[in-house]
């Protein structure tokens, strides 16, 4: 047992880092769908924008990372606001039109980014202070990933607490349980739409800035990241922060530990896991109960 | 008329005294909430039977249990003596136990005729084949039109269901249910959201139904209930209180205290305002 643990230790820690990265993406997607009933297929684009920001601005110094984070946050908020404004006129027209619109936007954005940054995958270096490796339980492990796990855990904890404990979080949860609630309570739905979109988008873009050294920016990354977070959301249950967190951690392990254990089935694990969950519990593993 | 006979065969088992519908010790629990608890009563074949009760009495749950939309926790539902408790909703419908919906529930993009046609073709067995015989198609259409005529909707046959007025949708709702040739018709709060005039018109529709069709009505509007029903069952807090003719039910002290004790005193004996 301890031998097995030892052999796969690195994969498991990788899985945690990967899972936390997916959480920063999935939580926005999940809330936008759960609260506003909007299927945002341009969500991966926000990660990519954040990752390119990190590539362009980080020069290995702490200041570079800080600037990249601030710029990434602004990019995310702007992108979220733009998407919310684009989707707002489609209220009541169903998911297909939202899907077409957001997919169209993501195609345009992806092409613009190819024009700006080229068609290569751009490996992005972490701050030089974090670029080395350390020994953890006898394994060498990149410092940056450990730091990422720390920061992302903090971020996830903040989001989780805000969602579960604050009054805004209570409103959000109430809305997921009963969407008409917001309207009957006299809350401005446009404000909620922009708020939720902005929050989710900012988190995805920040995830992109921090995640660039893990999933490097390049063409097609937006689609890959989108599909991954869709899987997380479906597994975790739409509109649930806890579900997004647990689903992301699960998928993180599937993508790292699972691949290390059964490499020949690697391409099937992700969607196999999703099909299994959907077949057993179509509403997701951790879906909030609806009255 | 020969035609209406095959539209509404109904009345199975009516002669030998087997009740059209038997509810035996039926219960449904949601966690610790006992929405319906050990309810037992019978619906005589050919009767116009109403289930009433104050808010929270378990009417809607009971309706869903009988229709098959919800599985029962325990107890049985019998249709003409046969146990249908474990049958899915569609299978009960195929056996003649057919429901309507509280708010009109139609195929809105289809025409009124197509709405009825869906029910008619199901009864004659629809296959997944793209082929169709023209003559058979004509027979189905004629049958659909007969049902539409029965409900006074024939002149609206070509209109999309979504374009019909509220009252017309109600009529079409019944037409779709009737076109399945039910032996027991379940009406789920048909007066919900209806104006008094619409309710009156609806009462006439139900009174005009063939006698072979047994009607079980779950309803809030007591005017409609007492204008229609020959038998009334009262539920209270998920339990069966009384089943009897309208006079018995009006006179029952238990019923009066149940309605007075409940928060809404939707007065049993007063005309409803507005």
């Amino acid at each position, binding site marked *: 047992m301890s031998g097995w643990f030892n052999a796969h230790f690195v994969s498991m820690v990788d899985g945690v880092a990967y899972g936390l990265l997916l959480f920063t993406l999935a939580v926005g997607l999940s809330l936008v769908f759960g609260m506003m009933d909007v299927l945002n297929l341009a969500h991966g684009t926000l990660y990519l924008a954040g990752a390119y920001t990190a590539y362009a601005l980080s020069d290995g110094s702490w200041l570079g990372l800080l600037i990249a984070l601030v710029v990434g946050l602004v990019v995310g908020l702007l992108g979220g606001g733009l998407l919310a404004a684009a989707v707002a006129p489609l209220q009541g027209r169903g998911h297909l039109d939202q899907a077409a619109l957001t997919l169209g936007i993501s195609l345009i954005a992806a092409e613009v980014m190819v024009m700006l940054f080229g068609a290569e995958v751009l490996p992005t270096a972490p701050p030089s202070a974090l670029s080395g490796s350390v020994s953890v339980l006898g394994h060498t492990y990149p410092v940056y990933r450990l730091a990422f796990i720390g920061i992302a855990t903090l971020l996830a904890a903040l989001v989780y607490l805000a969602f579960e404990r604050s009054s805004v979080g209570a409103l959000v949860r109430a809305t997921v349980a009963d969407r008409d609630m917001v309207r009957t309570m006299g809350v401005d739905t446009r404000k909620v739409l922009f708020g939720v979109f902005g929050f989710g988008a900012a988190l995805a873009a920040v995830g992109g800035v921090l995640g660039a050294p893990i999933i490097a920016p390049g063409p097609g990354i937006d689609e890959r990241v989108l599909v991954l977070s869709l899987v997380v959301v479906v597994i975790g249950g739409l509109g649930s922060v806890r579900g997004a967190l647990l689903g992301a951690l699960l998928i993180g392990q599937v993508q790292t530990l699972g691949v290390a254990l059964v490499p020949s089935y690697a391409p099937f694990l*992700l969607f196999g896991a999703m099909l299994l969950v959907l077949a057993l519990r179509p509403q997701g593993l951790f879906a909030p109960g609806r009255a | 008329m020969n035609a209406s006979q095959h539209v509404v065969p109904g009345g199975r088992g009516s002669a030998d005294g087997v009740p059209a519908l038997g509810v035996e010790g039926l219960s449904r629990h949601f966690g610790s909430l006992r929405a319906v608890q050990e309810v037992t009563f019978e619906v005589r074949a050919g009767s116009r039977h109403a289930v009433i009760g104050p808010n929270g009495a378990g009417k809607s749950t009971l309706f869903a249990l009988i229709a098959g939309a919800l599985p029962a926790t325990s107890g049985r539902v019998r249709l003409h003596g046969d146990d249908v408790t474990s049958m899915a909703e*569609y299978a009960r*419908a195929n056996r003649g136990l057919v429901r309507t919906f509280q708010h009109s529930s139609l195929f809105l993009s289809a025409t009124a005729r197509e709405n009825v046609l869906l029910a008619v073709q199901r*009864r004659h067995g629809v296959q*997944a084949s793209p082929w169709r015989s023209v003559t058979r198609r004509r027979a189905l259409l004629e049958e659909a039109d007969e049902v539409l005529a029965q409900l006074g909707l024939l002149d609206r046959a070509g209109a999309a269901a979504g374009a019909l007025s509220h009252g017309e949708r109600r009529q079409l709702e019944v037409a779709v249910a009737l076109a399945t040739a039910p032996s027991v018709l379940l009406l789920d709060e048909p007066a919900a959201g209806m104006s008094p005039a619409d309710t009156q018109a609806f009462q006439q529709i139900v009174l005009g139904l063939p006698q072979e069709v047994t009607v079980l009505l779950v309803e809030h509007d007591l005017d409609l209930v007492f204008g229609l029903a020959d038998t009334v069952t009262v539920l209270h807090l998920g339990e069966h209180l009384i089943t009897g003719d309208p006079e018995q039910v009006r006179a029952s002290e238990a019923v009066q205290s149940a309605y007075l004790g409940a928060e809404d005193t939707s007065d049993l004996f007063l005309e409803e305002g507005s």
Partner: protein
Amino acid sequence: MNSLQVRRTLLVGLVAFALLMVPWVFGAFTVSTFTRALVFAVLAMAVNLLTGVAGLPTLGQAAYFGVGAYTGALVSIHWSELGIVQLLVATLAGVVAAVLTGPLAIRGRGVAFLMITLAIGEIGYSAAGRLDAVTGGTDGLSGILPVVVLPGGEGLVNEGLIYYYVLVVAVLAYLGVGMLLRSPFGLTLRGLRDNEARLRAVGYRTDAYALGAFVYAGGLAALAGSLWASSQRFVAPGDMGFEIAALALLAVIVGGVGSMWGACLGAALVVFTRDYFGQIVSGHAPLLLGTLFVLAVYLLPKGIAGGRAQWRTLFPRSHAEHPTAEVR
């Protein structure tokens, strides 16, 4: 009524004439783009049968398209160069694939169905890339022989002849789908989209009908796949990837959900935007496609086939020039 029939007959005749003239008017590249558009139109009809008619939005039809493409290619390489044999075997393979996977897919509705079909599509894509012995892996499958229409005939290598082959099959598929939609089964599928609870209440086992739609759509997508193999003579995993599935769904949305001729037109628009106009503006096809989808959603909310009212609001001036059109 009568003039409407005359106008419709005229329109059908005009479209038929235009389609027949394509190889005589355009060069080889344009003709091959038309061929791809026709294949894509058949795939879009399959997507529309599920999404538009039965109300089950799918991102997984590329998987069955791929099953048909690989089957058609393998039949061509190992067994028969006859088009009809390839089409039949490929369609059958698509039907079998849909029968096996459908029961899982129809457990969900709406977005859940979309996600399950997405997963099926991605698994199919991964499988195609890994089953090297059968599919040639990520290198793809080449060596597909020119398709032969009549036994003993010559293989079709001329772009124009391939176009006609695809055109005939696509038109037959269109007519077949039209027949299906007018049948009692087609009405039932529309009922499934409109109001599944009510359909169940009048006695339909709705899951069986959803599965039926899934199987028809799987077979139709596989038929399109076989046409793809014959016309491109090369099949690769990318042909059954997310991009194809998404473009097919978007073609249906642009064309007008539920309308078959709309889906075909949408498919043609998508293929020409990507392969033809995309070439003209030096390879920025995604930019054009994205713009097309965004504009379509805003300007034509019901799609190309979604009625004339929205076209009138788009072009109010031409509307004013023909006041008689308003009175009609």
